């Protein structure tokens, strides 16, 4: 038997306490707001304007034109000029530049033999005398930077001789759905909903229960007829509301600042978000039954938060991870939510498309609530 009156008493008390806790109240609004603006503008996997150096051993009109063409791609920005390759390498060590373009003295001859220019494709393959026109050395430790430099390998060179750019027929035609302009922020905004909810929902609930222990209130509560499950439910209801406010802020700002619109149904979105909020809250409750003080609760939240950011698919594609890491990621509610919310917000996925992940979240919530209620003893020993 669960008493609604008891649950409402806890909810009312939580809301009263929250109203007087200005800082927490401010965090509820400011965390999603600041992080969305910050990540929305800062995270960009499309790398541009990489600082680079040039070592022009040819120093001819052709080499200068080549440099201008490379810079016109906006992938790199030439900031330094060096005479020798050694100097360029040292600049990379010092991180003054991330890459260097080395243009050999015979760049003109190389250009002439380049099939991209001459259009001379021998039937049996490339011209055996053809060689690359110049060389890039790059700091390959950052795969994104390395990838950007590599993308320059097949740069068309026709313009160099005022010829029409020869575009060979591509092997595949590629149509990019849902984010044709390839803006990183489109993927970030819905993902951020999952990350911010993970952070605030787990932390707030864990702290909310642990605070009662720290201040001794729990000693008073356990001498009353209240049942653990009533206490747990009453504790999480206010945070469900808070979670929805945060989702509204993130998606609202995402639309206003970054033009990320919600493709799917708002109702589907509401249902899955509620499921995820519940799952995060019940995880917070479980943490609260382990933590002895608010600092421990915070540390455990961070322990969950880091894999949530790195493994959930928020930063890096889930599919790219080895199976072991995927198995760990699957234990985190946010991994399932990440798939769902990107589906609903970006790809107009309906309830039917997200059933497995939604059921998983529901099961996780119920399990968490049960574990927390069982672990919360109305005794002091």
């Amino acid at each position, binding site marked *: 038997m669960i*008493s609604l*009156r*008891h649950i*409402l*008493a806890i909810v*009312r*008390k939580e809301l*009263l*306490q929250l109203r*007087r*806790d200005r800082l927490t109240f401010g965090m509820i609004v400011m965390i999603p707001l600041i992080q969305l603006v910050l990540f929305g503008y800062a995270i960009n996997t499309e790398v541009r304007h990489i600082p680079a150096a040039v070592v022009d051993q040819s120093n001819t009109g052709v080499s200068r034109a080549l440099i201008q063409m490379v810079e016109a791609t906006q992938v790199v920005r030439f900031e330094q000029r060096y005479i020798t390759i050694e100097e360029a390498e040292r600049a990379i060590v010092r991180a003054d530049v991330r890459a260097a373009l080395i243009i050999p003295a015979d760049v003109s001859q190389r250009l002439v033999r380049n099939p991209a220019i001459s259009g001379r494709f021998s039937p049996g393959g490339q011209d055996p005398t053809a060689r690359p026109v110049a060389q890039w050395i790059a700091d390959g430790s950052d795969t994104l930077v390395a990838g950007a430099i590599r993308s320059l390998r097949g740069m068309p060179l026709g313009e160099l001789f005022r010829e029409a750019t020869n575009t060979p027929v591509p092997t595949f035609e590629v149509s990019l759905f849902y984010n044709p302009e390839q803006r990183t922020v489109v993927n970030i905004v819905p993902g951020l909903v999952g990350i911010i909810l993970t952070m605030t929902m787990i932390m707030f609930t864990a702290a909310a229960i642990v605070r009662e222990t720290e*201040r*001794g*209130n*729990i*000693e*008073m509560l*356990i*001498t*009353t*007829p*209240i049942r653990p499950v009533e206490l747990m439910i009453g504790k999480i209801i206010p945070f469900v509301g808070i979670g929805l406010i945060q989702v509204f802020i993130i998606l609202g700002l995402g639309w206003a600042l970054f033009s990320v619109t919600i493709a799917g149904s708002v109702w589907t979105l509401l249902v899955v978000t509620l499921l995820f909020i519940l799952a995060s809250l019940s995880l917070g409750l479980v943490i609260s039954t382990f933590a002895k003080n608010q600092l421990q609760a915070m540390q455990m939240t961070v322990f969950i938060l880091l894999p949530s950011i790195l493994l959930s698919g928020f930063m890096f594609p889930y599919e790219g991870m080895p199976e072991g890491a995927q198995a760990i990621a699957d234990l985190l509610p946010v991994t399932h939510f990440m798939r769902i919310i990107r589906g609903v917000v970006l790809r107009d996925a309906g309830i039917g498309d997200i059933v497995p992940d939604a059921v998983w979240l529901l099961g996780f919530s119920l399990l968490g609530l049960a574990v927390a209620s069982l672990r919360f003893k*109305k*005794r*002091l*020993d």
Partner: protein
Amino acid sequence: MSATVAETFGLSRTFGAKTAVDKVDLTIQKGTVYGLLGPNGSGKTTAMRMLTGLLRPSGGHAVVLGTRLPGNPEPLKRRIGYMTQGFTHYRDLTVTENLHFVADIHDFSRSEKRQRINELLEIYDLDAQANMLAGAMSGGQRQRLALAATVLHGPELLFLDEPTSAVDPETRRNFWEQLFDLVEAGTTIIVSTHLMDEAERCHRIAILDHGQKRADGTPHDLMEQVAGRVFEVSGTNLRPISRTLANGADILSVSQIGARLRVLVSKTAENPQAAVEVALRGISDTISQPTRPNLEDVFVLATRNPVR
């Protein structure tokens, strides 16, 4: 007046290797104030937590309002009230908010709740502070709020853990007046304390030390039992006399009270007066005479006995 509301039989509790409560037998009669007197760490709080069902006894058992413990203490929680040692209601809620919360937890209806809270605000003189945050109130006000919240549901048995250790004597006196009002209405009260003046107000007390019960009875009877073994010594230059006396045979304790020394003599001494005289031999200008024992003497004598 003779019905037993709580009884313990060899009640024990250990925490690891430490024994906090050691085979304690208590009998508490209905409509009385029963005091658990003991120094800090004597097992008072642990005993109370076992009686309220918050801790499981490691040995022995208790029967509280007909409920056997260890057992299911949940139904008991509607019939008892437990006021913890520190203030454990919400400091960031106002007086009425705290009381509303407790009333809701005890399933009061809306009208019952309003009526009962108004009643409590008046009895415990909290009308003026009704909308004040509990954290902003004085110690005495906060303690009245704690008592009001603890008795809100009309418990038959009330546990108070060191209720007045942190308040001034005036507040303490008023608090005890309110306790006796509750007793008049039929409530039984178990109170733990390390204050003699508080213990003296109880109908019966049990003296606890190192988890063991050392004595129990009415304060009056306990004081009678040590009559004839308490002496007052007056003289000049009391400090050296005090040190000499403390080494005397059968002298249990010497403490200076202003211009006199209070001397307690062991019950093994056949003639307590002689024991004091012997100890004082060779010191001139001293007068020793028997005096009326007080509860502190009882306490010192009871806790000086060697640990069993």
